[in-house]
């Protein structure tokens, strides 16, 4: 079956987003929680603009009006060992 991938991290296709919108998940935060879009390593850089575009097409709400989900730090993945390191002071 041909699928147009919207979210590479979580393997979510356009069809999945459309179906969730049909089911009534029209808030981008709800879609995120339903489909896990934006929860992968890219933190939504790839999928969220696409999902906003799909939402605009389906609901008529302009992309500019659709809020971006809350930012979850860090912006790039960081190994736990680095975060746990006690060497901050020596490095600076």
């Amino acid at each position: 079956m041909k699928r147009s991938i919207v979210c590479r991290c979580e393997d979510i296709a356009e069809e999945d987003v459309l179906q969730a919108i049909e089911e009534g998940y029209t808030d981008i935060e709800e879609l995120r929680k339903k489909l896990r879009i934006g929860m992968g390593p890219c933190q939504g850089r790839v999928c969220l603009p696409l999902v906003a575009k799909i939402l605009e097409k389906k609901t008529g709400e302009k992309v500019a009006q659709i809020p971006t989900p809350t930012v979850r730090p860090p912006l790039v993945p960081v190994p736990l060992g680095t975060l746990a390191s006690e060497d901050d002071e020596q490095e600076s």
Partner: protein
Amino acid sequence: MNRKADVVIIGGGITGCCLAYLLSKKGLDVTVVEKRYLASGATGACGAGIRQQWSTRENALLAIQSVKIFERLSSELGQDIEFRQGGYLIAIHTDNEMEQAERNVAMQRSLGLKVDILEPERLTDVVPILDVKGMKAIGATFCPTDGHANPFKTTFAYADAARKLGATILTHTSVVNLKTTQKAVSGVVTNQGTIRTPVVVNAAGVDAKAIAEMVHIHLPITPFRKEIMATERLEPLFDAMVISFTDGIYFSQQKEGQIVGGIPIPEEHSGFLSTPTFEFLSHMSRTLTRYAPVLRHVNMLRHWTGFYDVTPDARPLLGPVKGPQGFIQCSGFSGHGFMISPMVCQLLAGFIADNKTSEVLETLNLSRFKGKTTDRELSVVG
């Protein structure tokens, strides 16, 4: 908007949606009012754990009965809530903790729960990646039927089931005021209009205190910011949730493979500040890699905050209050609302629809704080 309902529930989290489902099933006309989107508060930020190992009898009872409901919930609601029973492993670090664990286990067993105290060398049988020396454990308690479920999917499944039974769920709608006449509630004023109703359920989580103030009821609820993090997805490594009351840490591996966990922030303060802190990340990473050193190579992906609505004895506030009739509390869950929500809501639904009360509802009424010392829940993490 000009509406009426048999019951208005304030708050579209797990308890609000579960209660909406149960009351609709009993034939009542229910409206849920949620100021943001479903599961946007504590439910959606929580650690997803479902634990029956508590120190107070009421919490243990509520959790044991809730697990029985969780076990059949996916088929009842027709949606997969991703409930999995991998158990909870509670590390024991000191002789005092061992004594408390023995008391807890005796009480929990008297309620029919299967729970054991493990020798230190048995901990890695349950969670192979643990470093028992590093975590300084002298043993652990383990209950194999504890587990976790997906809080979003559970909330959405309850909401969908409630809608199918005729409930109205209004998101992006805030409560502005409560109306009362002759000592009883009569309506809920929202930013979209007024809903006339004889019963209002306050399931607003950390905002429950502000809602109750609208009818001059003071709820002893303090908001505490809690932080939590998720790693990248990994192959399945372990099934149990690992927690420690000494270190305050909890972590588990979720269905998709990510490890999710939290720990109290050093120098924690109460309040509504919601920004994540680096102190948490540093403290969490150090403790987590001490418990499971192999995880130091694993990437941390995301980190977020949520709120515990904490009561003086860390137990929920349930049922009616001395004040306007029809004003029902369903709040103060103190960080463990998701896991006991099915049974809490069943008791409240019985009270609202059939006027049935119960030992648990009476014990957890707001009146327990009136000049009495209450039995405090000791088994709290995060």
